[in-house]
């Protein structure tokens, strides 16, 4: 069997389908995108090469930078707000046990099961200034209740809340499985030693969850950059470009403004950004792993020396 796996023909047969899929579904479109990024194509008919013109235009495009800023804000929101809460919730769920655990696990995951379109319209109604839930609550407590939740200055925060709320279930579920994989004997040992909940969390759960956190953070970053459907349905980037996100802006330019070449240029910059960010996050986590390994090595070396 080992011999068979080292046979090049077999390797080719086994790897081939996946490789072809990758080449035609991912690689080829990227190459085409790069190609079209240098043209003034409208998506129909003939087009000319315009060199770096699209990219030069992109540098001065305010809306593009707003969309990048919003993606960054969303990524920060995911990492600093959504994930800590998701992790703590997962931890509490795990400690809860029994029926309650099952019940709350389901409840927290419900937003993820509902279609994005429904979510967007649900929140559209919650935010509606005339008959929305939020303003009615404010009115109930004696306020004026005239807040324009999707207005120019606060729209982005309202949108972020929806996105963070909507993605919460996934993050929690992954953390939850991570926690479930931790050897329960460790917790037993900790409780015998008299460690409290907080101590157990920081001493056992958190360190052992590192690989899960790494996966989750990378996924959060990518999904923040890729955000499209909820924003498209909720505000379509408006008012103006206040809640614009990169993917939505790309769509708008390529398919509504008929600037297909420009849209592709945005796409190329977008891909580069995604790759760079992924590499950076991997580096960050890798370095820590290495450092800690070194630390452990040092300790064991010292022990040996003693």
């Amino acid at each position, binding site marked *: 069997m080992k*011999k*068979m796996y080292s*046979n090049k*023909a*077999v390797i080719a*047969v086994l790897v081939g389908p996946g490789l072809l899929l990758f080449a035609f579904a991912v690689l080829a479109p990227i190459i085409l995108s790069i190609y079209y990024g240098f043209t003034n194509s*409208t*998506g*129909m*008919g*003939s087009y000319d090469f315009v060199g770096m013109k699209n990219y030069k235009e992109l540098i001065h495009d305010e*809306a593009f930078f707003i969309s990048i800023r919003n993606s960054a804000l969303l990524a920060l929101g995911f990492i600093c707000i959504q994930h800590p809460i998701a992790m703590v919730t997962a931890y509490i769920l795990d400690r809860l046990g029994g029926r309650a655990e099952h019940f709350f696990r389901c409840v927290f995951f419900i937003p993820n099961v509902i279609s994005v379109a429904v979510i967007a319209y649900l929140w*559209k109604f919650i935010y*509606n*200034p*005339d*008959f929305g839930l939020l303003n009615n609550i404010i009115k109930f407590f004696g306020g004026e209740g*005239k807040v*324009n*939740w*999707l*207005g*120019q*200055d606060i*729209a982005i925060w309202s949108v972020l809340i929806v996105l963070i709320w909507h993605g919460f279930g996934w993050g929690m579920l992954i953390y939850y499985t991570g926690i479930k994989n931790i050897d329960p004997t460790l917790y037993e040992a900790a409780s015998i030693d008299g460690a409290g909940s907080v101590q157990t969390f920081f001493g056992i759960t958190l360190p052992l969850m590192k690989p899960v956190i790494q996966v989750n953070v990378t996924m959060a970053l990518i999904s923040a950059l890729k955000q499209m459907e909820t924003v498209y349905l909720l*505000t*379509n*980037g*408006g*008012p*103006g*470009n*206040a809640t614009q996100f990169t993917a939505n802006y790309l769509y*708008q*330019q390529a*398919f*509504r*403004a*008929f*600037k297909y070449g420009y849209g592709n240029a945005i796409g190329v910059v977008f891909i580069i950004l995604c790759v760079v960010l992924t590499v950076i996050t991997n580096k960050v986590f890798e370095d820590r792993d290495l450092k800690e390994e070194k630390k452990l090595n040092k300790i064991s070396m010292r022990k040996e020396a003693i």
Partner: protein
Amino acid sequence: MKKKIVSMIATMALVATTFAGCGSGSASNADTAAADSSEDAATETASDGEEITLKLFSNLPDRKNGQGLVEQTIVDAYMAEHPNVTIEVETLDEEAYKTKFKAYSMDEMPDIVSIWGQPSFLDEVLDAGLLAELNTADYADYDFVEGSLDGFMKDGKLYGLPRNTDVAAFYYNQKIFEDNGWTVPETYDDLLALAKDMQAKGVTPLAMDGGDGWPLAVYLTDVLYKLTGSDYANIVTNALETGDFSDPAFTKAAQLLQDSAAAGLFQTGFDTQDYGTAQNLFTNGQAAMYYMGSWDASMALNQDIPEEVRTNIRMFTMPQIEGGATSATDITAWNGGGYAVAAGSENLDQAKDFLNYMYLPENLSKIGWENGVGMSAQDESDFMTGNETELQMQFVDAVGAATGLSGTTMNDRGTSAFKTAIETSIQNMSNGSMTVEDFLSNIASSIE
């Protein structure tokens, strides 16, 4: 070991051929089935010739109400008259339609398509040579309204036909007006004063679909047209050619829009609310007025709207603006949507035949009129039934009495890049987060 590999590959090959066999088998089955049915049809309708399938790609997804119902009625009638012709209808709403239209432009454009006779849509489409030329002489007896074909022509050749005459209008709830002793405003100042009064009484003055951007652009056009009158087209065309929007009329119109929004003419959050939400605000009786095109005149026949509101919907056009160059009977109206035949159609003659059938005055125009979908681009005076809603008659009168029509709205006069730019920044400008100067320089910079 080698044997194993060989047998593995052999197995795979076998599997592959099996699948291939399946594929070709089913394909040939389908072929014979198709041949059978066409033979049947041929014997049944020998005189009508071979089976033809036409594809109609339309931007009217609602086939049970309004314009979509009209279209479907005509499609069904045509198929009944031509048993050998099958028309497959595919529908998507406007934005999704335009996206898929573009995908189709690369390959297999449907035979008959919805189009817009405006530079922002049609220029790119005609440059790509996607639409078939139509014979102008065919339509001599079709009673098209003077000038309505202009937007569908290029270099003297006709590429499409207009479906509607669209009029920008302020719909208002007559009952709310009467109950409060309000009257239709004659000047723009009256309108703003009225809005103040409405706010004081806790009524939302005007429901505006600002989330889409284009209704705001129509509003801006409406104001601009009232200010500039017959110069409107020249001023906009000039600005679009030179990229210079310094004409004081632009500043004044934009400023007026910004001030109106600041004065609370529109509902709170108008800049992000969509079409349905704005319309609901009006049809629920929460807002006293609603700004939209004449196609929404079918509200008066829509059974989903409470009767109390439905029967009380009336309209007026943009009131006179101080310093404006128009009279009260100059209105903002244009011929937007329409149909065309794809240049690459395999059944070009049949497709054109269907198009011509659709536009027979007793079809689109008459059926449309009976369904209250607003004004067609053809003369409708022969089709008056006497059962028209009062709202419909108001539109007929407004167009009939019009001393001037604006033509295509500002946002649709430029490229689609210009359209996107103006429809985006107009939200910022009207909610006050962008100055009028920045707005004008912003839309100017979208012109290459």
